[in-house]
């Protein structure tokens, strides 16, 4: 489980030793009500389109996932072997809840779902992803995205 108190000692130590930056500032962007906003997903699960370049050791870039991607076209090449993949294998929404977001948009609980979503690969030190992430912000705004749901794995 992701609760450290339920993990074996070695696993707990390893997770606590992972790179974990601290920041001096605390940025905050006010959001409109959920019913008005367009939402994109960004995962660090190392997901990408089948045939896209797999993630490798140290990868700090991202892959683009079109909202209309067929389920059989989404694969995972995260380099870590230390998390469960069997949930994703049975149901992609365990990691990438695109179907759930679509349902929320149909029920008008959220405004809309972005045309494109994105994946990084979380085994890389997140500080190395800064440049790619800041560049991605401009692309998200061009897609009229108001808010992002970020999902680790």
């Amino acid at each position, binding site marked *: 489980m992701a609760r450290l108190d339920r993990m074996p000692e070695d696993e707990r130590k390893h997770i606590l030793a992972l790179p974990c930056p601290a920041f001096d500032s605390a940025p905050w962007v006010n959001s409109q009500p959920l019913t008005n906003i367009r939402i994109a997903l960004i995962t660090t699960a190392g997901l990408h389109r089948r045939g896209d370049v*797999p993630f490798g050791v140290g990868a700090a870039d991202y892959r683009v996932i079109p909202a209309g991607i067929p*389920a059989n076209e989404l694969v995972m090449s995260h380099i870590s072997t230390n998390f469960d993949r069997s949930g*994703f294998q049975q149901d992609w929404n365990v990691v990438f*809840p695109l179907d759930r977001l679509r349902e929320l948009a149909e029920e008008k609980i959220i405004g809309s779902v972005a045309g494109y979503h994105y994946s990084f690969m979380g085994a890389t030190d997140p500080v190395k992803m800064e440049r790619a992430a800041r560049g991605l*912000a401009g692309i998200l705004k061009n897609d009229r995205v108001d*808010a992002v749901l970020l999902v*680790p794995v």
Partner: protein
Amino acid sequence: MGALSHYLEEEGLATTQISLVREHTEHIKPPRALWVPFGLGRPFGPPNDASFQTRVVVSALKLLEAAEGPVLVDFPDDEPESASQNTPVVCPVNFASAIAEMTTIDLVLEAFKSEAANMNGWYEIALSIRGRTTAGVSCLSLNEIVGFFASFISGARDTCPITGVTIASGIRMAAEDLKAIYCEGLTAQPGEVGDSTAIANWFWGETVAAQVINAIREICLGLPANDFQLLGKLLLVPRNQLHRFQ
């Protein structure tokens, strides 16, 4: 994850996130985070439970309506209990007895071929039921993966059957595809599907495929190149399963 949130928010986008390791999130202090008590790899809980997943998604999105932050909220529920939770997975194909009888690597590889052929049948059934597979990152068929691994164990170190990647990267991708084929096949079999722990314990404790991956791990640890060392130390066998091979 919290760092990405920080960068995006600085660029003017509102963010909310799932937190799997609360201690990390407390340290990074992203603007909005929902901590969930689920296992690594399952940020929205169990598969095929849309209503539960929706509750998690909505709980994370609701944080966007907070007036100020940082906000770190705990999701109140564990994954729903299932009848199969933490109970052993029973696979109709019994591989464990074969492992105990094996004394040479040739016998292991022979058993691996036989086991893979059995699992491939279930994998094809899984593919027809779900209409999707997560295998295929290596672009190798199951037979090609078996051949690749047998060749590596037998001493071949000069060619990777996957275009454009090193042998070490190829082994890693092929190992993940192999596990995907086995686990997708297992979870398509009749009866209750075990939870993540039960599935992992089945693969690493009861299959010849796991013995083969471990044999490759041990070979990698004896090779001087950094990519093989990394592969052997970290990227083939999960830390919480290594005890089986020590």
